[in-house]
């Protein structure tokens, strides 16, 4: 009897694990099947670099690719110094008590809903951008979206940076202390050089988070379908393009193109995950 229970339990556990793992493949499969008419002809890669003009039968999503690239890179440019400074603060430059509070605050930030950032972006940030830069038009532009996004990705980056800081061998830090290093010297000579895998991981995860976010870009980047020329231009990201699907005609090429967008996002994310796991193995984890 117990043998049977043992076996059943084990099989149930295995099926759950295998099914959960298959879920990732299932999502990929659905995107592939639905996007197939576009991908089948080997056109997929040329689509990435072709303009969008449904009137002429062109369904390339160059504007969306550029929009995603511009908004997510710019948000990392804003978030990187913020996050690095914050982690240095927690890594010994700031008072310990404030650092602990800050740690809680950063973790709290991970829980702030992105739709709230978007909402406040519309009513607080966009008017400010509109007043400061007259050429920004309505104020809904790449700059607004990436400023808001930088707040979304900072906690992710800070947590991974801090992980990298904490993974530095404690004996090195003790040795530096014993040699009379102060907190700045310890940071510059010991911790920062040892923490680079964590920093790279944090940047990749931050980029992934920025690329994958929908609501902020959808609400405050303006969603215009053209290749952006400056950071004050309106832009549409791959994620917003999917969100704005008008499902009137399931057979149209315009509709199929959103699956190509989805596939692109999926593949970029999978590559980021693999890169991060490689880095983790280098650090002796995973």
């Amino acid at each position: 009897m117990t043998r049977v229970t043992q076996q059943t339990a084990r099989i149930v556990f295995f099926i759950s694990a295998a099914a959960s793992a298959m879920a990732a493949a299932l999502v990929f499969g659905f995107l592939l099947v639905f996007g197939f008419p576009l991908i089948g002809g080997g056109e997929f890669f040329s689509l990435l670099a072709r303009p969008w003009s449904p009137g002429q039968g062109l369904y390339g999503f160059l504007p969306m690719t550029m929009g995603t690239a511009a908004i997510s890179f710019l948000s990392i440019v804003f978030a990187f110094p913020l996050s690095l400074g914050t982690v240095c603060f927690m890594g010994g430059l700031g008072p310990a008590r404030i650092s602990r509070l800050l740690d809680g605050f950063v973790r709290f930030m991970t829980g702030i809903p992105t739709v709230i950032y978007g909402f406040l972006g519309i009513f607080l940030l966009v008017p400010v951008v509109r007043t400061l830069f007259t050429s920004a038009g309505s104020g809904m532009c790449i700059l607004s979206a990436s400023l808001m996004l930088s707040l979304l990705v900072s906690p992710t980056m800070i947590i991974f940076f801090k992980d990298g800081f904490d993974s530095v061998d404690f004996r090195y830090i003790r040795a530096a202390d014993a040699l009379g290093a102060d907190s700045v010297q310890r940071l510059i000579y010991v911790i920062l050089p040892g923490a680079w895998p964590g920093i790279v991981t944090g940047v990749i995860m931050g980029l992934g988070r920025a690329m994958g976010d929908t609501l902020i870009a959808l609400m405050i980047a303006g969603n215009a379908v053209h290749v952006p020329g400056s950071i004050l231009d309106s832009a549409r990201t791959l994620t917003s393009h999917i969100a704005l699907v008008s499902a009137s005609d399931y057979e149209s090429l315009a509709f199929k193109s959103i699956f190509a967008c989805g596939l692109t996002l999926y593949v970029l994310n999978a590559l980021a995950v693999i890169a991060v796991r490689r880095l983790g193995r280098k650090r002796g984890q995973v």
Partner: protein
Amino acid sequence: MNIRILGGCLRVFSWGAVLLLTGSVLVLLGYLLVKGVPSLGRELIFGQVDVLDAVLLRKRVFDGLFPAIAGTLSVVLLSVGLAIPVGVCAGIYMSEFATVLQQRVFGLMFDILAGIPSIVIGLFGFSGAIFIHKYVSNDFRPCLAVSVVALAFLVLPYITRTTQASMQGLSIQTRQAALALGATRVQNIFYVLLPQSFSGILSGIILAIGRCAEDTAVIMLTGVVATAGIPGSLLGSYEALPFYIYYISSQYTDATELMSGYGAAIILLVVCAVLFVLAFIIKRRLAGPAGPVAGEFHG
């Protein structure tokens, strides 16, 4: 000499970064509270309808957030309820039975699943709905059931990972005591390992609830609408708080509607903050700081 200047710069830089980051978040949330708090009240949620009538579903609420709150509540409960059994079982397998190869392959798949942008999960749910519409039933459209399944996909890897991590974190003494007394592996899992890692799993589940409650991208492709009333069936449309916030921000017609958007944003923020604090406390209180509590068991 150089290091001193560099150190000074670094100090200023780190203080500046901290002040800028916390300052901008506090300004944003402060603005939300200042603008939105006046709108909070019974009317915001129930409109002109009596509270008891609304909760007992005797009268329909047209001008309040009650249907959106009910929609969010049902979609969250159903999807987390769907994800918990599968996720916890998968986590147990990963921690207790998986071979090294399985840990690698499944682990990679979980990481990929966890990283898929939520709009792509939404697209997956949407295409699933089209598939059923085409091949099974012509009446099938994106609905509550589709959202529930898609959101379950979204939080499954969280639950699996936290289960796995908190079970693997147990000390070797805890792991082997029952086995040494003759318990089977499955008995050991259910009577010792699961109860011991309960707090870790629970805090993971609470974070998953928060993730479901705040997600907008998945549901906007899988059946949420602006007005639907209280969700009545798994195959019907429903309203949800985060979608309401998104919808109002672009479609508001007068100041009252905009104010209800602020109110909805405050409610959603408070729900997420409470869940977050709850998860934090459970992790701290029940698990305790690793050292001393583990010592108590042995002492």
